[in-house]
């Protein structure tokens, strides 16, 4: 995982209490509630969401509004979910493994 290119607007010095626990590739994280899964991935520094089935290259969400289908991840065992269309919820398990992510 690399340093996130994104940060929260109201950078919490008073630590934002409204967070929830999610599992990203089995690793526990706290993310702000009501964020989309795609936003949570960016927040956690995961710049890519999936490995492209044709080219094998890493890809990431382009539109964040349900149009491009680039942010497909596995959510709670369901494959090919658009990460941008699903708000995070407590104990949600997300599998997102783009190859060569941090090379």
């Amino acid at each position: 995982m690399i340093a996130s290119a994104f940060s929260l607007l109201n950078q919490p010095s008073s630590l934002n209490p409204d967070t929830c626990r999610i599992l990203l590739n089995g690793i526990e994280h706290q993310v702000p509630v009501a964020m989309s899964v795609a936003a949570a991935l960016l927040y956690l520094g995961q710049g890519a969401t999936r490995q492209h089935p044709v080219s094998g290259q890493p890809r990431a969400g382009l539109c964040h509004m349900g149009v491009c289908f680039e942010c497909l991840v596995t959510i709670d065992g369901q494959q090919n979910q658009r990460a941008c269309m699903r708000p995070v919820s407590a104990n949600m398990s997300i599998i997102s493994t783009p190859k060569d992510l941090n090379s």
Partner: protein
Amino acid sequence: MTQVYDYLVVGAGPAGMAAAIEASHAGLTVLVLDQAATAGGQIYRNVGHSSTAQERVLGPDYSLGKPLLKAFMAASCDYQPLAQVWNIEPHAQGFTVAALIDGRSVNFVASDLLIANGAMERPMAVAGWEKPGVMTAGAGQILLKASALLPKQVVLAGSGPLLLLLAHQYRAAGVTITALLDTTPRSNYWRAMPWLVAGLSMPKQLIKGMWLTLVQRICVPYFANVADIQIVGDAQVKAVRFMVAGKEYEIPTNLVLLHQGIVAQTQMAQTLACEQEWSDAKQCWQTQVVKAGQTSVPGVQVAGDAGAIGGAQLAQLEGRLAAMARVKQNCTHPSWARKLAYFALSWRIRQLHWARGLVDRMYQPAPWLSTPTGTTVVCRCEQVCAAEITDIAKAGCAGVNQLKAFSRAGMGPCQGRQCGLNLGYLVAQAQGRSMAQVEPLSVRSPLSPINLGQLAQATEL
């Protein structure tokens, strides 16, 4: 017995909300299906839950959505968020609409439909746009509205009001804008000049637009008349390369946001066989409207950016007008006051569309962006590059739908939403035809992917 709604509205943006308010006040049974978790559409996304810090950064126009949202939540209509419509078809009592809700397909029946699912951003196929670290400006704004996420630094590239607005909002939030690459061709300004009269009919918006443009030119590293943008990097964006007046530049960055205007989402209307037309001014396909949102198919209306692109204010008025027209059907003797309100509203909509002519012409996409070349990926889903498409088109392919069969371009999960327009431009260019002569990609159900289990369990009527 399934409930038959009088009016089913797809989309809870300004058009859908305004229509639902009007129709439910008039006593119709109304259902609103929306794919997002909260109502507001893209323009007023999350407006009901935004923080004061978000509102400060997003500006006063964003908060205009608040009273509308409040009226919508108070209206006596049924509202179903997180509903992804995947099928619409005619039914004995009107139409049946199937939506995925919480992983299950649910059917709804209504006598009349209003399609108000808005627009999407015009795809901007530059070399390397498929790399992680490239998003659209709309995506950047959605992250700000819905998740209060901001990039630390960014390069903005493209053309159009949203790009300038986002630059303004990012600056207000303290984001470092490494560069703003404006691809608007100089010739557009000349082409738009006669439409200045139209723009002058809305002086407030015109001044705001000119001010936004001016401020960005002064306050951020601004490059005008940019061409040949290339995204450089391997697994992640490292830099952006571009040309200005024959000189090459390269700027290091890990994030590029692209934008070149928005285009109507016509897929739902297309599955219902509503007639489509090519708009030369807006450079996109749109659903033909007879009057007050009425499409060529009886019982089906469109409103807002799902019809002709016009922005939030117009969308809200169009939604209201469409609902008034629907209510009129049930009312044999409307009052004079109602008739007058209807007439005034349709006149105002016509005037606003005319005023929009300036923006339409000013921000038409640059030709080099509509017709990419070489190894630039056009179909992201199936990884089909521009040269392959041009070769097939030159060999005499009949149109984009045959091209789809030959190349797989447009066959992936996005169902041609990201490549359809560029396929059309490339075929038109290779064969010396106009866009109006190249038909749009055909649309078939499912409108969004559904797995076999969900299909099998789909509630039967």
